[in-house]
């Protein structure tokens, strides 16, 4: 990868840092169709982690020590249940493909943040918010946060909405 792009303007060299490319950890797996319990359990685990399905039996997460460890254990989980699994570390072949995948993941969590914000706003409008609701929405925000690798603008809006609700009900 070329770390620097050199530009010359009127004899002055400007160095622009090329934006870092995302490194992904992929899990390629095949699980027996029956029993279905491990398939469903695996699907739930992947959803909780925020993994993106890139093909049938291939899921991707941005690679860091935490996601790589989770994916390693999931591969073992598949093997333990009679399946086949391999773990890959990869980069997409073009920046456009990378941006498309990032955007897809960002859109998915944005949707989840919007749902939280809608609940917080609704409670504020009806003035029937409770501490339990504030606590539940905070928990939900933490859950979303765990699978939010490319924060959309909706994140700050949802946090602000829940914070406002929490202030109101604890006053």
């Amino acid at each position, binding site marked *: 990868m070329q770390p620097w792009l050199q530009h010359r303007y009127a004899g002055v060299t400007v160095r622009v840092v090329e934006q870092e490319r995302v490194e992904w950890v992929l899990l390629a797996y095949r699980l027996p169709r029956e029993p279905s319990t491990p398939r469903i359990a695996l699907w739930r*685990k992947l959803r*909780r982690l925020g993994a993106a399905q890139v093909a049938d039996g291939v899921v991707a997460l941005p690679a860091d*020590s*935490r996601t790589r*460890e989770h994916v*390693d*254990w999931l*591969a*073992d*989980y598949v093997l*333990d249940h009679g399946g086949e699994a391999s773990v890959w570390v990869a980069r997409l072949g073009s920046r456009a493909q990378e941006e498309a995948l990032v955007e897809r993941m960002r859109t998915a969590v944005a949707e989840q943040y919007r749902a939280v914000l809608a609940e917080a706003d609704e409670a504020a409008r009806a003035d029937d918010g409770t501490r339990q609701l504030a606590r539940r929405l905070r928990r939900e925000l*933490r*859950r979303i946060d*765990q699978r939010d690798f490319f924060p959309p603008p909706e994140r700050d809006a949802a946090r602000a909405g829940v914070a406002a609700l929490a202030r109101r009900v604890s006053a």
Partner: protein
Amino acid sequence: MRWATRAHVHVDRAACAWLIRRFVDAEAEFCFVDDPSEVPDDATPFDMRGVDLGHHGDDCTFETILRRRGLDDPVLWDLARIVHEADIEDERYDAPEAPGLDAVCRGLSLVVDDDTALAVTGPLFDGLYELRRRALLGRRP
């Protein structure tokens, strides 16, 4: 006895090292490897892919060691609840302590090496054990 685990220890491995030293092998020496093939012949590997003392079913390695070694101290199982949630985050247990423990261990791993991380987290888990022991006895800490 020698024990081996993956380098860059995080909460599950730090908790397991503490558990091993306190309840399994007081003389335990730990070494850290990057790859399972680097585990020395005389060392027992833990919290690595494909070894007995790893994740099994829904258990994290801390829980696996408790089961394999027949450790039935309820305080250790209460700590297992916290370690499980800090490590796997699957909401199987109610563990409000978990996100804080996760943050402390994650931060620590950014600034110290593995030996130091275990030296620092040792007293931390001693304290957590004592706190939960008193809580289970129904006493105010």
